[in-house]
């Protein structure tokens, strides 16, 4: 896996969006952004109503994912190109979902919606029609998803990367700063976790930094590239972006996203928590 396998740029999208077998999908933090304008030919997936279980705290299950992709007209051998706002934050989260359920050919538009907008490229409101398919998903690939017990067991033995902002890491904030600070759980971080905010992997325009710059970023923060890695944030979305960087761009073999993240860990009874800026 390397950068050219998993990232495309805007020129590639403009040249290939009408190719058979290429599906553009917008997945945005602001789920109304698509309706105001999107890249021509793109369909929408709503990260909340489409990808999350409406009752339990979990994802749509395998059958739910199959139903979703079938009705959106995505086939198992399609090249799916995901993009979204805020440095592809939620597009990377959806990318991880596609990989979790075994879709082979998934890519991100480097820079996502923001770079597309900052470059003043065309956005349209016309919604394309795609004929329904009969999508077959695989069982979840648990090699890229971490659960709480293995996170506790990883303290002091694997890389734990806390990708939230420094203030959330230290326990001074309980949510990202564009959201109200209302959370029930304790503040702080998992002991031994290194704090590498997810956004540091991206330039201001949302494109990913070079492989060399990324290796320096994580290496300088104390991440050991020779051992396994678990990334977490608050609810597992920002850490999907870091999972993408570590696993898909840098090709690290054993990287998991802990989607329970701080809202689960910080509510567990009896687990260790560290406060302050130190790991």
């Amino acid at each position, binding site marked *: 896996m390397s950068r050219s396998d998993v990232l495309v740029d805007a020129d590639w999208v403009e040249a290939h969006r009408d190719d058979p077998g290429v599906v553009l999908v917008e997945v945005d*933090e*602001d*789920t*109304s*952004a698509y309706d105001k304008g999107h890249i021509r030919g793109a369909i929408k997936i709503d*990260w*909340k109503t489409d990808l*999350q279980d409406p009752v339990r*705290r979990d994802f749509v299950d395998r059958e739910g994912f199959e139903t979703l992709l079938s009705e959106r007209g995505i086939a198992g051998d399609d090249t799916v190109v995901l993009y979204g*706002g*805020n*440095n592809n*934050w*939620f597009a990377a989260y959806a990318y991880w979902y596609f990989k979790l359920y075994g879709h082979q050919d998934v890519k991100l538009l480097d820079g996502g919606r*923001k770079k597309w*907008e*900052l*470059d*003043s490229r065309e956005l349209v409101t016309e919604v394309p029609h795609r004929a329904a398919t009969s999508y077959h998903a695989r069982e979840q690939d648990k090699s890229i998803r971490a659960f709480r017990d293995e996170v506790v067991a990883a303290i002091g033995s694997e890389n734990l990367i806390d990708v939230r*902002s*420094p*203030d959330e890491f230290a326990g*001074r*904030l309980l*949510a*990202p*700063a*564009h*959201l*109200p*600070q*209302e*959370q029930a759980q304790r503040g702080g971080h998992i002991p031994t976790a290194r704090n590498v*905010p997810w*956004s*540091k992997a991206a330039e*201001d*325009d949302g494109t990913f930094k070079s492989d060399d710059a990324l290796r320096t970023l994580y290496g300088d923060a104390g991440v050991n590239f020779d051992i396994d890695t678990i990334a977490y944030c*608050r*609810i597992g*979305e*920002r850490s999907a972006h870091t999972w993408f960087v570590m696993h898909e761009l840098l090709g690290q073999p054993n990287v998991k996203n802990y989607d329970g993240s701080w*809202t689960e860990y910080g509510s567990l009874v009896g687990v260790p928590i560290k406060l302050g800026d130190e790991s």
Partner: protein
Amino acid sequence: MAASAGCGAPAGGAEVTDAGSQAIVQGKVTREGAPVSGYARLLNSGGDFVAEVPLGADGGFRFFAAPGDWTLRVLAPGGIKADRQVSASTGEIAELDVAV
């Protein structure tokens, strides 16, 4: 906001429900009096990215920060980039209007 509501915020920023316990930074970005479409990002005192929202239809943004000093960065089409310094305090709304 419940965990299941995720990290999503609408363009312009989330609604204020309890300003008394929050340290809010908000404002509007305009160009020659007209709202700008683009992005507002909040950087901490070390210059590191903390959060970002698309500007609302009125050019508005809102952040729920911690008390302290912050930098607001505006990004807009045409290579527009503007930084402004702002201080936030709990229970107060720091208003910051930016003309680019």
